[in-house]
């Protein structure tokens, strides 16, 4: 199907570009680390306190990092008007979004998984038995952040003060993801951990709804 094969080609280009320079991934990872360290100064990092505040601060770090990481998403395409070239080349502009969402989700997930052991070590928590649950939570959360973030990146790329605008628009819209993923992660870090399926369902619903909205309205985001 043309949409998926186009998205695959586009995704290949996104990943190749990033792995050539690795600038996005490296800066994002360092940023998450800095946020986690700085926030940890705001509470007493004993085991019980870490279990209470840790997940929230982890997801806040991911959110802040994402709002910076998503900036270049469409700004890159403005440089040589490659966005125009893409619009000429693809049948369905949604392919552009699918590819960028997939790429951003992969980058975010990569960052999160690298940060997870660091976080576990710094705060003396273990995830061992809950790894599948953690992965699922991170996947759905990153997907939600990417879907909304990519759409808003397309909007903010056309506005003034775009560096400030993207986080400004992104954080309120992502409130459900922040709230729910934090709760689910808290439960995964408890002495008796378990996966909160209701939360997983809420996150999946969020992702599905916004992907659909983007599918319906995406082409207008790219209009000139």
């Amino acid at each position, binding site marked *: 199907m043309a949409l998926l094969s186009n998205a695959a080609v586009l995704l290949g280009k996104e990943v190749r570009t990033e792995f050539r320079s690795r600038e996005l991934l490296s800066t994002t990872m360092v940023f998450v680390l800095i946020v986690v360290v700085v926030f940890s100064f705001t509470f007493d990092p004993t085991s019980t306190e870490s279990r209470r505040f840790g997940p929230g601060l982890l997801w806040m770090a991911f959110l802040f990092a994402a709002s910076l990481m998503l900036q270049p998403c469409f700004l890159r395409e403005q440089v040589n008007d490659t966005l125009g070239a893409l619009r000429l080349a693809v049948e369905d502009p949604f392919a552009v979004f699918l590819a960028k969402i997939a790429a951003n989700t992969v980058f975010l997930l990569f960052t999160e998984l690298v940060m997870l052991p660091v976080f576990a070590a710094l705060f003396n928590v273990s995830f061992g038995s809950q790894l599948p649950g953690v992965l699922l939570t991170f996947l759905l959360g990153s997907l939600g952040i990417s879907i*909304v973030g990519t*759409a*808003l990146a397309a*909007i903010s790329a*056309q*506005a*003034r*003060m775009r560096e400030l*605008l993207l986080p*400004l*628009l992104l954080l*309120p*819209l992502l*409130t*459900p993801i922040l*709230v*729910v993923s934090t*709760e689910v992660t808290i439960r995964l870090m408890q002495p008796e951990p378990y996966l909160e399926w*209701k*939360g997983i369902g*809420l996150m999946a*619903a*969020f992702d599905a*709804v*916004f992907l659909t*909205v983007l599918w319906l*309205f995406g082409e*207008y*985001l790219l*209009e000139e």
Partner: protein
Amino acid sequence: MIRRILFAAVAVGLVACAAYAAFYVAPEERTMGAIQRIFYLHASSGWAGETTFFFCFVANLLYIWRRKPQYDWLGVTCAEVGVAFITVVLLTGPIWAKPVWGIWWTWDARLTSTFVLWILYICYLLLRTLLDEPERRALLSALFGVFAFIDVPIVFGAIRWWRTQHPAPVIMGGEGSGLDPAMRKVFFFNVLAMHILALFFIAERYLLEKSKHDAELLRREAEAR
């Protein structure tokens, strides 16, 4: 002009009557006393604000579909009026909470979600100030408006679930609390009055937006000569 004055008189008159009813007609609440009467203003402003945001959503969709500037004017108008009403909700909540609970804010589910709603539409208005070209501004803010409105029920759901995990005092009675029939009548009268007031503000603000546009057109015509 006469119509506008008449509309204003009706709107203000209704609100005055509704306020009177809230203070003198509705029975006093059993446990909380007189301060509870602010509920009539608080909840009815909330309903009116939410209705207004719904109109904004519809205007946004219509603009994306039809691209007529009138829909853009309606969108920004409803966003501004909605924000005004929700501001009233956010101010009256704490005014009620302080005497009753001794604290200004309790991260109550509904009020917190309303706070996020308020922030989202402030973002909508802020986005508009950062887009210079009129057609870009209209289209992109309409798209953001669609995203924002669709997010709202999800925000309410997520925060409500969050609060069930961390119970806290609930402002203005929770989901289960019912209203005495006499109170209910006064409440719905207040809701009606607030909606009429909202409609009046929308009409006036829309006319203002239209005048701005007409003035701009005249200015351009004058310059072209």
